């Protein structure tokens, strides 16, 4: 296991607040494959760092039931120094990451002590997928989706198996924020398949979400998850999808996906215009 945390340069705790100066290790574990040739710190890793720092230095151990107003405005690169600010209240944890005075990411968690841990479902015999390639920019173990199960004009359904190699999987559990990456990769998989007839797949970047609900504390190794992304608006530039993931049998519709989701939300991405 390589380096999974930022290199802390300075810590300034205050009452219910924390300011951290840190650097992205050049050999951070999550850079290889995210993306090949263009390493940058994945959004879900930034979000996980925020929760880990709040737990260690502010004593906030309440699990997040939602991430709101999530924004990724600029990439966070290997070796880059950044400042992270946290503010905690009883039910909320807000964060901002800046680098060289420019915003990198921001958002807030809604915290809930009563958040359940879902019961793992038995791993179902995997249905044989149709011949649909998983076209994703992520490679190696940063490619968290496993297969495309179904693809249509509006929506794409994928699956993923949680394993000990899954990013952020520690002490036999992968935190629920990994779900953000699963949803984002399913959006990318939809874009990849939709653009198959075009000259080449276009790159997209997760830019944020108004609200992502986390209805469980985490995922367990061996668990098979379905992940569904449904296109809402935009072909290039700013695009939006409504996404969900869950356990057991894949859902047949958006409504069923929402009802049975363990993680659900609308995600926004920036897709490079054709020819960019």
């Amino acid at each position: 296991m390589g380096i999974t945390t930022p290199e802390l340069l300075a810590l300034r705790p205050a009452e219910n607040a924390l300011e951290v100066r840190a650097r992205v290790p050049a050999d951070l574990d999550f850079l290889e494959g995210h993306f090949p040739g263009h390493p940058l710190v994945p959004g879900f890793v930034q979000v996980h760092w925020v929760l880990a720092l709040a737990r260690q230095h502010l004593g906030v151990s309440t699990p997040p039931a939602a991430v709101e107003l999530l924004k990724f405005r600029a990439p966070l690169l290997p070796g880059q120094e950044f400042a992270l600010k946290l503010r905690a209240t009883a039910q909320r944890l807000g964060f901002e990451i800046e680098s060289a005075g420019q915003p990198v990411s921001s958002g807030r968690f809604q915290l809930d002590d009563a958040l359940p841990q879902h019961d793992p479902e038995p791993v179902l015999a995997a249905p044989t997928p149709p011949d649909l390639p998983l076209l994703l920019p992520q490679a190696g173990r940063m490619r968290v989706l496993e297969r495309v199960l179904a693809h249509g004009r509006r929506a794409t359904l994928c699956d993923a198996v949680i394993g000990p190699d899954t990013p952020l999987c520690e002490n036999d559990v992968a935190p629920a924020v990994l779900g953000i990456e699963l949803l984002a990769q399913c959006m990318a998989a939809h874009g990849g398949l939709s653009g198959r007839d075009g000259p080449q797949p276009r790159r997209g970047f997760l830019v944020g979400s108004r609200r992502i609900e986390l209805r469980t504390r985490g995922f367990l190794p061996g668990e098979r998850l379905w992940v569904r992304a449904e296109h809402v608006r935009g072909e290039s530039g700013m695009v939006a999808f409504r996404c969900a993931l869950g356990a057991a049998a894949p859902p047949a519709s958006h409504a069923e996906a929402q009802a049975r989701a363990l993680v659900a939300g609308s995600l926004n991405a920036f897709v490079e215009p054709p020819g960019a």
Partner: protein
Amino acid sequence: MSHAAALGADLLELETEIKKIIIDALMLEDTAVEDIETDGALFDSGLGLDSIDALEIAIALEGRYGVTVEDDPEKNRQIFASVRSLAQFVSEKRAS
């Protein structure tokens, strides 16, 4: 009420609705409808919104009014300049 006055009242109502939509879409919990100026800048110096916020507002307007915001940065800068320009855009799109 004259025809022009009725149109004006409709537009005023629409502007108030759009302020509510912005507050809801961006979860501006400490902001009331009265706090948003109809002619005030929404981006940069004004309410301080960014392009990600504009996307959320566009999705909310599309859902509420069935109008489509095209992917045209130059035009969108004008449409998203203020609540007044957004209301004008929605009312023109709905009329056509």
